[in-house]
């Protein structure tokens, strides 16, 4: 890490993807997967800030039991937009569209994704979907919750539901196109010698994720379109007053939206596999199990959507089946956690920033996962359904799991992406602030939820206030923690030391090319002759 290359010197000037072309046009018309990843990075960072601002307003409102900061209508719009923006415009594209886009071709020894122009198209589709959502905010917002439950969304809501539906519909296609590109790329573009079981687990995780995107997203797209038609033409596809069935909407919605949580968490799990092996200097424990657990999660993820509907009036039998299947998905998740822990056993662990995020992930994902079992249990769920217990569980998986993984990835591959080293001290400090702030924000929500605080209410009984004060205080700390990387990472772009090709001494093809990588990644396509994570051999060479 202590590579003392002077700031101004370019080890290989004019040869990397940053310097391959200049001007806005060279970026907006690029088909280079690395540049498209950067375009995605910029856009999702903007959405992350916007979604975060909505969260700030929510937490400020909840500081007091009375609804004094915003009206109840505004509050409804705030939590709806927070959910919409964070799920559809940050979490779903975060790791796949940025890290996956950048890394998968390099990791598998290819010059680009299978369909570079479709890759660029997916970014434009995403941008159009994003602009539509901006328009929604300008037209007064939307108040249905990110779940769009009918008939409220289709008939009664007075807000911009139609436009929102169009925005989500459009964005879905960017997800489909990315997933399609990844599946085909991983099947057909691997370098000679890179067999399926030599692939980095990051690639396996993205393969599983992409399958969910391909199979699930079209279903939610058409469902949202039906809601749109229902609203525009005043027909009753999901409206019980006109012969429709609102529970059918919930089935179709959750058929995608439950697997969608695995779209958000699986790529993070792939990141953890890479980072934990690198900083333990060991081959991942039980490679095959970790690889197949990703596929198992993707497959089981499609069979358990009904656990969102235990109180919706679906049959008891269906509830029981969904409950049992939900328990099954804990198995591959636990396989991963145990295997990462076993990878660290007798490893030479070092505590660089990405590894600190891995520790954060392991603890928080475990808490989030175990409370998921509470919610999957049929009887207990009736008690905590639609309470802050669910909110806390979801944020432990999504913020504690998915975003920790995203930050681990950002810090692990930042030197590769930008060719610059960031300040370890600042990065470690912010990782610790984020961990503390996160727990203070969301742990009290488990307690207040169990005591009966419902989600989506902005007025609540006085005895819950202490929990909300703790949570809001934690959110302030969390916001500071998230602000730090924005500064030291951008600072590193201009003032950071130049990064060597392999700053972490890590395995994987992406570390064999210069940082930042050249335009077409490889001069000659590499031939892979070893297993993934062969750290034992690397150590011998170093010694």
């Amino acid at each position: 890490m202590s590579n003392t290359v002077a700031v101004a010197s370019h080890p290989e000037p004019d040869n990397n993807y940053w310097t391959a072309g200049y001007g806005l046009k060279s970026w907006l018309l690029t088909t280079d997967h690395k540049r498209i990843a950067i375009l995605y990075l910029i856009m999702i960072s903007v959405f992350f800030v916007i979604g975060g601002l909505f969260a700030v307003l929510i937490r400020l409102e909840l500081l007091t039991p009375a609804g004094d900061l915003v009206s109840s209508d505004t509050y409804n719009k705030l939590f709806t937009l927070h959910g919409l923006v964070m799920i559809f415009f940050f979490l779903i594209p975060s790791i796949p569209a940025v890290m996956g886009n950048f890394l998968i071709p390099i990791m598998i020894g290819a010059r680009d994704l299978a369909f570079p122009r479709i890759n660029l198209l997916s970014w434009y589709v995403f941008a159009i979907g994003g602009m539509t959502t901006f328009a929604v905010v300008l037209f007064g917002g939307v108040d249905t919750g990110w779940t769009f439950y009918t008939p409220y969304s289709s008939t009664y809501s007075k807000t911009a539901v139609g436009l929102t539906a169009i925005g989500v519909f459009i964005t879905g296609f960017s997800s489909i196109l990315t997933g399609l590109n990844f599946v085909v790329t991983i099947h057909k573009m691997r370098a000679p010698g890179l067999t399926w079981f030599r692939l980095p687990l990051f690639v396996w995780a993205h393969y599983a994720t992409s399958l969910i995107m391909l199979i699930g997203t079209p279903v939610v797209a058409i469902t949202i379109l039906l809601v749109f038609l229902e609203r525009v033409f005043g027909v009753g596809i999901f409206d019980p007053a006109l012969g429709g069935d609102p529970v059918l909407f919930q089935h179709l919605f959750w058929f995608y939206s439950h697997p969608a949580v695995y779209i958000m968490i699986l790529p993070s799990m792939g990141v953890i596999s890479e980072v934990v092996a690198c900083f333990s200097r060991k081959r991942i424990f039980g490679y095959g199990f970790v690889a197949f657990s990703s596929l198992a999660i993707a497959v089981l993820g499609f069979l358990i959507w009904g656990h969102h509907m235990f109180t919706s009036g679906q049959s008891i039998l269906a509830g029981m089946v969904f409950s049992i299947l939900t328990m099954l998905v804990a198995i591959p998740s636990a396989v991963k956690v145990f295997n990462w822990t076993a990878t660290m056993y007798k490893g030479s662990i070092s505590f660089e920033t990405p590894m600190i995020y891995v520790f954060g992930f392991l603890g928080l994902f475990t808490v989030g996962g175990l409370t998921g079992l509470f919610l999957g249990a049929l009887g207990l769920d009736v008690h905590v359904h639609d309470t802050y217990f669910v909110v806390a569980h979801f944020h432990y998986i999504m913020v504690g799991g998915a975003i920790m993984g995203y930050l681990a990835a950002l810090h692990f591959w930042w030197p590769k992406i930008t060719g610059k080293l960031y300040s370890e001290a600042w990065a470690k400090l912010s990782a610790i602030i984020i961990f503390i702030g996160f727990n203070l924000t969301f742990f009290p929500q488990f307690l207040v939820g169990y005591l009966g605080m419902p989600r989506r209410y902005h007025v609540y009984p006085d005895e819950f206030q202490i929990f909300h004060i703790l949570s809001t205080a934690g959110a302030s700390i969390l916001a500071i923690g998230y602000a730090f990387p924005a500064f030291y990472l951008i600072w590193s772009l201009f003032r950071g030391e130049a990064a060597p090709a392999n700053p972490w001494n890590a395995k994987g093809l992406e570390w064999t090319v210069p940082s930042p990588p050249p335009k077409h990644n490889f001069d000659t396509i590499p031939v892979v002759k070893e297993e993934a994570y062969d750290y034992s051999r690397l150590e011998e060479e170093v010694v």
Partner: protein
Amino acid sequence: MSEGHSGLVAHQFETAEQQKETVNLGMWAFLITEVMMFGALFSAYGFYRAQYPAAFAAGSDHLNYFMGAFNTAVLICSSLTMALGVQAAQQGKRKGIILFLLLTILLGGIFLGVKVLEYADKYEHHLMPGINFSVDSPFAAQIELFYCFYFAMTGLHALHMIVGIAILGTLVVLSYRRRFSANYYNPVEMAGLYWHFVDIVWIFLFPFLYLIGRS
């Protein structure tokens, strides 16, 4: 870098063979997403059909099964001309490609024309949900639901036909400009897959909407 060979192999591929296999898999993956998209509509339709069999059968009765059957025949013929077009492409017969793709476009156009007549007929008989729907029946709401699905499903299918015709038109132009040969005809083959898929969707739509339970 492989920009050297033939110019028709994109830079990210090593060989023409790899490019062909990759594009092929990409098309099949795309068709899976299409199956899921239509599949959601089919399952919702099936669910309501099971809920309200009498109303849905009454809805079917208002459809003109002769027009539906005629259109089915037209589409099956278009699948034949499409397959002949792909065969001509494999053999590098440029005139064959142009002739059979134009025939396919013509048959697709006939299908859409008949569809327009059917939609106009529904409009005249006040069977357009959300626009002028009114039937005299105790379960009018459920019949309206049937027509919601009729228009959503056939409309989505027709949209796919229009996209398909646009693709085939582009291929005719490219073929006229001698872009394809016996060594490179992948786009024609992929368009064929897409066209056959759209036909198959109709093969399911016709009995589901027009035939089941009609009196």
